[in-house]
């Protein structure tokens, strides 16, 4: 009993001193709670479908941010990892009979391998050249898919694979819990020493090399990690949709990820996740105006990028929070002095 009370007190202290002091953290907690409690309030299959897919794509968008945002390895072919994860999971399920809980991580491992395969030849490339090279890989894989229709199903894809779970609510919880878990892991990675090296590689790779750090290893690690997370999302997508087709490798899929990430704000992890949770349901909401749906969607994206070039969530965060010039701790914007070092904030 004492132990429970101790943990409850600890939880309360953390909530009071770490969470409630910053609006962004309160929003994150509310976001977690809202997602986890949504099926308690509604079991509408359409709504749950939208949020299941949103969660799956949120993992994909965050994984792009990990590689391209944090490490600066501009990847315009992120659909490759997604497609490899989807096809890997579908093939293992269809031909080997492995259930989704096994195929999804194995598909993700296949995506890791593909991350290494494209990472190695791309090590010497930077910026536009890297972006264009990575763009080619999903197109090459699509050619492979069409070249072996007996195995991959050709332009039809691999259909009729096992469902993620027996019900829509369980599908939803699997996608949401995996998304929340993986995004937290990605955020923790970026906050770790590895994350700091990723940052440094993006800012000045030569300086990092001069400091004695093996940047090749870290860049390959970034490709592998990003491939793993994107592969998980691809596997989840294949089992949820019950098909892995060439559309998972299309160029439009790669660019969609880039749009999500930039809309929300790159180098944040939470930005791309938030962006998917706004843009994906928005596109569905705009169905009431079918003729202008895509136009309205494009206008919203353009306006946000025009007036908030660092992304919507960075802009919002900067409006409600301020960084202490001395200790770099974030404070609520209404404060005049830092909550830790009491330095003036204005």
């Amino acid at each position, binding site marked *: 009993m004492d132990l429970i009370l101790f943990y409850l007190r600890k939880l309360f202290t953390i909530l009071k001193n770490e969470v409630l002091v910053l609006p962004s953290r309160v929003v994150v907690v509310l976001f977690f709670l809202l997602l986890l409690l949504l099926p308690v309030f509604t079991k*509408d*299959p*359409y709504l749950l*479908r*939208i949020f299941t*897919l949103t969660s799956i794509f949120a993992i994909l968008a965050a994984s792009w941010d990990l590689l391209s945002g944090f490490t600066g390895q501009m990847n315009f072919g992120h659909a490759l990892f997604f497609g490899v994860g989807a096809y890997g999971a579908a093939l293992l399920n269809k031909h080997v009979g492995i259930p989704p809980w096994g195929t999804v991580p194995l598909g993700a491992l296949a995506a890791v391998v593909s991350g290494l395969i494209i990472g190695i030849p791309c090590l010497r490339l930077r910026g536009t050249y890297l972006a264009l090279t990575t763009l080619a890989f999903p197109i090459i894989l699509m050619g492979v898919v*069409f070249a072996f*229709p007996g195995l991959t199903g*050709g*332009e*039809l*894809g691999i*259909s*009729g694979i096992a469902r993620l779970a027996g019900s829509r609510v369980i599908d939803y919880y699997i996608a949401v819990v995996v998304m929340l878990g993986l995004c937290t892991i990605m955020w923790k990675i970026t906050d770790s020493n590895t994350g700091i090296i990723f940052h440094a590689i993006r800012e000045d790779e030569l300086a990092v090399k001069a400091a004695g750090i093996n940047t090749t290893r870290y860049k390959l690690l970034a490709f592998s990690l990003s491939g793993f997370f994107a592969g998980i999302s691809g596997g989840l997508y294949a089992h949820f*949709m*019950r*098909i892995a*087709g*060439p*559309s998972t490798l299309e160029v*439009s899929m790669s660019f969609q990820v880039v749009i999500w990430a930039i809309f929300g704000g790159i180098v944040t992890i939470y930005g791309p996740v938030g962006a998917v949770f706004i843009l994906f349901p928005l*596109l*569905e909401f705009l*169905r009431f105006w*079918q003729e202008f*749906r895509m136009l309205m969607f494009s206008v919203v994206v353009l306006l946000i990028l025009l007036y908030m070039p660092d992304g919507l969530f960075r802009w919002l965060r900067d409006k409600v929070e301020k960084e202490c010039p001395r200790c770099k701790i974030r404070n609520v914007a209404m404060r005049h002095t830092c909550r830790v070092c009491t330095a003036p904030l204005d």
Partner: protein
Amino acid sequence: MERWKRRIFILAMGFLFAMASFTVALGQEIKIGVIGPMKFVQGIGHWNGATMAAEELNAKGGIQVGNQKMKVQIIQADSNEFLNVTDATNAMERLITKDKVHFVVGGFRTEAVLPMQDIAMENKKIFIGVGAAHDELCLRVAKNYNTYKYWFRGSPFNSSFLGRTSFIHLGTVGAILKQSLNIPKVKVAIVAEKAEWTEPMIKAAEGAIPSMGMETVGVWRPSPVATDVTAELSAIQRSEAQMIFTIFSSSVGIPFARQAGELKIPAVQVGINVEAQKDGFWQATQRMGNYVATMNTYARGVEYNELTKPFVDTYVKRFGETPTYTADTYAAIVYTLAPAIEKLGTLDPDKLVAFMENDVHKAPSGVVAYLKDAEGRHLHELRWGPGYLTALGVQWQDGELKAFWPNKWKAVPEAPEITYKGIVPYKIPPWMIEKYKK
């Protein structure tokens, strides 16, 4: 007195209940979801056909369901399936769970129709596919009947039959050339756009052409979006081919026909050219698409049966163009769904499926019947052949799309000849006659 009061009360309640039921029944509608790529010609065809169907049925007071008439309400869902498969499945889920449709018609891209089919089947909604031709969609019915029995193919018949029909057109035109121009062995160039779906057709054509007493001189694969095909046309000219077997579903069909006309390539075009099925082809090719032949479902002035002319004429009057096969949403609603509902007096999908899968009925494009596989399992696949659905061989003749096939066609030697009303003879381009007529 108390007993009377109670009786009056019960009567009043009964009356109110009956009135309430009647009011609810009056307000009830049969909701039909129309799903397709609405910004593209295929989706526009879906919607136009369904609009005509709803207008026609509602003008008669609706569909008789038991002892009440129910109006038809069609609900549009833009699947956006050419660009986004996920979007297509969301549209289907919305139709079924939000709009609460009773039936769904439409769908086009097979990769999108497969997951859309899964959603409809999970919700036990009858889904009549109008657009996707892949065999797998119907094979699923045979493999897992209890799950997929709510799927029916509405149009076109499957890709195997499409291939077979285009080979018949090839053989028919080949025989005409042989006879009219005294060509002993007709040489055929196969030109297929560089796309996965054309691969099995190329292989099949390479096998079928020699068996028809003709010779294949080569296979050319232009890009589906090519705007210049003069290199391919020059090579075909050098190969001395007299026929070009086209397999096009994309925009390349226009430059190919235009440039072949401009260069007066002495070879006739037969096969599949989706662009040539459209009314705008004549203008798009700057009148150079003359004599191009393709497979099509409808042509102005051609009648499969007595239902064709009213449908085509009304469609042309209402929408200003000849219907394409995706406009067969009309037939799916008016001739497949509505009679089944009226006959059984119910909207129960299981009862309707049991009736529909054995039903044989006329539609504007022929007689609709559903096939079973070799093991006798239901496929819900359209029956192809004489007396059922055959489609047409059409040719551009001086600005008009005329049907030249079937013209005294016999599927097997002992079968009766088939010629639809409005069929005209095939025309050989004059420059071909000039070159080969001795």
